[in-house]
C-alpha cells in the first residue's frame, strides 16, 4: 500500500505545471454559460490542445499523451491548482469519449475524437425528456428507420451546454414494442444544427442559458452515427453514466483547489473562529475525496471495475461542493449576495450537482439496494 506517483507521472505533473504557469489566463474567462464566454472557453480548449494538454489520458493518435489514470489525476491536480478555466468540452471528453473507446468503431473514433480534443466540436448531452428524468428508461423520443439511417422525433430537455454546442449524443427509442422500457433504445450522435433541430435555451437559476430544450422533428442521423448495436443503447449509456458518476466527472484536483482557496479566503477575512469548523470540513472533505479516488483508481488499475460504488462518490462530491460554496458565501457576508463573483457563480453551479447525473435520491437507492443489499421498494 502506498501513495507514490511514478517518476513518469511526476514528470507529467511537472511538465503540466510549467505549461500551465505560462498559459493559464491571468484573469478568469467570462462565464462559459454566455456566448462570449463559450467562445473564450472554446479558444482555451484549442490552446490546451495545441500544447497536447486537453485529453492527457487519450492515446497519442487522438491528441492525448497516453497517461494512465494516476497521470490523469496528477494532471488534474495541477490544472485546478493553477486556476485554469472550467472545461467546456467536459461532456464530450468525460461522457461520449469513454463510450466511443468502449463501444464505438475505429471510423467513429478517428472522425469524432480529434475535433473533440481540439475544441472545434463541442458536445452536449441529450438524456432527459420532459417525462423522463430519474426514470430515464421511460423516455419516448423515437429514432425511426429510414434509408441509410434514422429519423429522430421528440423532445429532449436539460441538455447541458446545448445552447451553444455543436453536436449532441443521447439515447432514443428504436423499438417501441420491446418487452421492457430499457430495451429497444439506441445510442446516437447528432448535429445540433441539422435540419429539424430547434434549440430553445433555458435560463438556469441565475438566468444564464446553461442548458436547453431540444425539439427534434425528423432529424436525420446516418447509420455511421449510431454507437454500438441498435437496441443496446441503455447498457451503453449506463456504462457512460458509470463514468460520469465515477472518476471522470469531478476530479479531486478541483476540490483540493477550491478548498485551498476557501482556506485562503477565511484567513484573508480575519479567520473567523465561528466558521473554522466548516472551513476545516472543506479541507477534510477534499482530502477524503482525493484519497477515495486514489483507492478507486488503484482498484481500476488492478483490473477491477467501478460499479455501484460510483454512487457513493456522486453523492459525496455533489453535497460537498454545495457545502463548500455555502461556507464561502458566509465568509463573504453581505457581499456574498453579489452574483458576479467566482464564488457566487460556483455556488449556483454547485446547486445543480445533487440533481444531475442521476439525482442523489436515485443514487441513495442504488447504494442501499446494490451495496447494502436492501430490498427494492417503491421509489
Amino acid at each position, binding site marked *: 500500500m*502506498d501513495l507514490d506517483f511514478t517518476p513518469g507521472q511526476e514528470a507529467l505533473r511537472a511538465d503540466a505545471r510549467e505549461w500551465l504557469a505560462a498559459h493559464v489566463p491571468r484573469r478568469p474567462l467570462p462565464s462559459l454559460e454566455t456566448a462570449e464566454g463559450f467562445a473564450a472557453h472554446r479558444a482555451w480548449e484549442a490552446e490546451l490542445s495545441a500544447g497536447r494538454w486537453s485529453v492527457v489520458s487519450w492515446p497519442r493518435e487522438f491528441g492525448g499523451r497516453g497517461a494512465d489514470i494516476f497521470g490523469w489525476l496528477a494532471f488534474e491536480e495541477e490544472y485546478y491548482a493553477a486556476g485554469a478555466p472550467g472545461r467546456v468540452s467536459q461532456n464530450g471528453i468525460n461522457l461520449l469519449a469513454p463510450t466511443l473507446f468502449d463501444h464505438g468503431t475505429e471510423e467513429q473514433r478517428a472522425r469524432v475524437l480529434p475535433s473533440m480534443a481540439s475544441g472545434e466540436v463541442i458536445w452536449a448531452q441529450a438524456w432527459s425528456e420532459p417525462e423522463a428524468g430519474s426514470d430515464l428508461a421511460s423516455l419516448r423520443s423515437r429514432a425511426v428507420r429510414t434509408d441509410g439511417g434514422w429519423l429522430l422525433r421528440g423532445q429532449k430537455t436539460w441538455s447541458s451546454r446545448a445552447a451553444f454546442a455543436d453536436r449532441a449524443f443521447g439515447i432514443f427509442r428504436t423499438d417501441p414494442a420491446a418487452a421492457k422500457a430499457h430495451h429497444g433504445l439506441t445510442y446516437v450522435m447528432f448535429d445540433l444544427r441539422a435540419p429539424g433541430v430547434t434549440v430553445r435555451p433555458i435560463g438556469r437559476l441565475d438566468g444564464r442559458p446553461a442548458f436547453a430544450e431540444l425539439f427534434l422533428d425528423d432529424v436525420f442521423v446516418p447509420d455511421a452515427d449510431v454507437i454500438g448495436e441498435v437496441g443496446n443503447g441503455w447498457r451503453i449509456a449506463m456504462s457512460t453514466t458509470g463514468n460520469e458518476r465515477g472518476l471522470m466527472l469531478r476530479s479531486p484536483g478541483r476540490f483540493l483547489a477550491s478548498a485551498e482557496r476557501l482556506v485562503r479566503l477565511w484567513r484573508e477575512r480575519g479567520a473567523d473562529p465561528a466558521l473554522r469548523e466548516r*472551513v476545516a470540513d472543506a479541507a477534510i472533505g477534499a*482530502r477524503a475525496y482525493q*484519497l*477515495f479516488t486514489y*483507492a478507486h483508481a488503484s482498484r481500476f488499475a488492478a483490473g477491477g471495475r467501478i460499479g455501484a460504488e460510483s454512487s457513493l462518490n456522486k453523492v459525496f462530491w455533489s453535497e460537498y461542493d454545495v457545502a463548500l460554496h455555502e461556507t464561502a458565501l458566509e465568509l463573504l457576508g453581505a457581499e456574498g449576495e453579489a452574483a458576479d463573483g467566482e464564488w457566487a457563480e460556483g455556488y449556483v453551479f454547485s446547486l445543480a450537482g445533487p440533481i444531475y447525473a442521476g439525482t442523489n435520491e436515485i443514487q441513495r*437507492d442504488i447504494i442501499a439496494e446494490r451495496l447494502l443489499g*436492501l*430490498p427494492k421498494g417503491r421509489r
Partner: protein
Amino acid sequence: MRFLLDAEQAEFGRTLDRMLGAADTPSAVRAWACGDHGPGRSLWARLGEAGMFALAVPETYEGVGPLPVELAVAYVEAGRHAIPGPVVETAAVATLLAELPDPGRAKEWLPRIASGEALATLVAAPGKGSGGGFASGPYALDADAADAVFVASGDELRLATGHGPLRPSADPARRLFAPEGGTVVARGSAIRAAVGRATELAALLTAAQALGVGLELLRRTVEYVKRREQFGVPVGSFQAVKHRLADALIGLEFTRPLLFGAALSKSPVDVAAAKTAAGDAAYTAARTALQLHGAVGYTEELDLSLWLRKARPLRDAWGTPAACRARVVRPQSAPEVT
C-alpha cells in the same frame, strides 16, 4: 501508486475477524463492564498471539513494528468486535516507552505488551506544540485492569501508583479512573516530542476503532431492517430507511481512505482529518442504528448497545472533533510544530 491493502494485510484483517467472530466477544464486553476482566484478558492474549500488539512494538523489544497500516487494519477489527480494554492506550504506551532515552522501561514492558500479556493505559495532555489536540481526558481508561498506568504532562512521564474510584462512562465497558500518586519515569524535552507522537498514534488508532464500530453498527442495522416487517414488508424497503443507511455508508467509506492515508503519511493533519471523519461517521452510524432499530435499539439487553454506546466516547477520545478540526486549519499558514 497502489492505495489498496496488499493481500497479506487484507488477510490479516480477515484472520482477526474470523477469530473474534468465533469468540463470543459480547459476553466478554458485558463481563468487563462489571469489572470481571477474565474473558477480556483471554481475548487480549489471543490478539497478542495473532500479533496485533507486536505491530506497535519495535523489533528490539520482541515486536515487529511500528507498522501503522497493519495497526489500522487490526484496530478496525477491534472496533468491529468491540474488544474491551485499553487497546489504543496500550499501543500508545508501547511507542512512548520505545522512544524514552533510557531503555529500562521499554525492556520491562514492551515484550509483555507485544505478547498481549500486559495491558497499559495512558493519560496524556500534550501541551502546545507537541501534538496539542490529541489529548486523553483526565481519566485513565481501564486503570483497574491495566498493569501499568502512565501519566504524561509537559516534560514529565510518571507511573501512577494507584487510582481513584470508578467513574462510570457512557460506555460501561470503558472504565474510567483518575490516576493517583506516581513516580517520575522520565523527564526532559525529548519526552514532550515522544508524547506528541504517541498521542498521534492514539488518535489514529481511535479513528480505526471508531470506523470499525460504525461498520458493525451499519451491518447489524442492515440485517435488522431486512428482517423486521411492518405494513407487510421489510422496513428496509422504505426509502426513508434506505437513504439514512446510504448516508451512514458514505460517511464510513470516505473515512476509510483518510484512515489509511494518515497511516501512510503519518502527517498530524491527516491524522486529525481521519479522527474527525471517523468520529462523525461512527456517530452518524450509531444514531442511524438506534433510530432504525426503534425501541428495541434503546435497550441495553440488545447486543447492539455494546457498539452504540462506544460511538460517542470514541468520537471525543484522543482528539475531540473541535480540537482535530482546529488542527486541520490554522489562522495563519504556519508550519506544523512538532
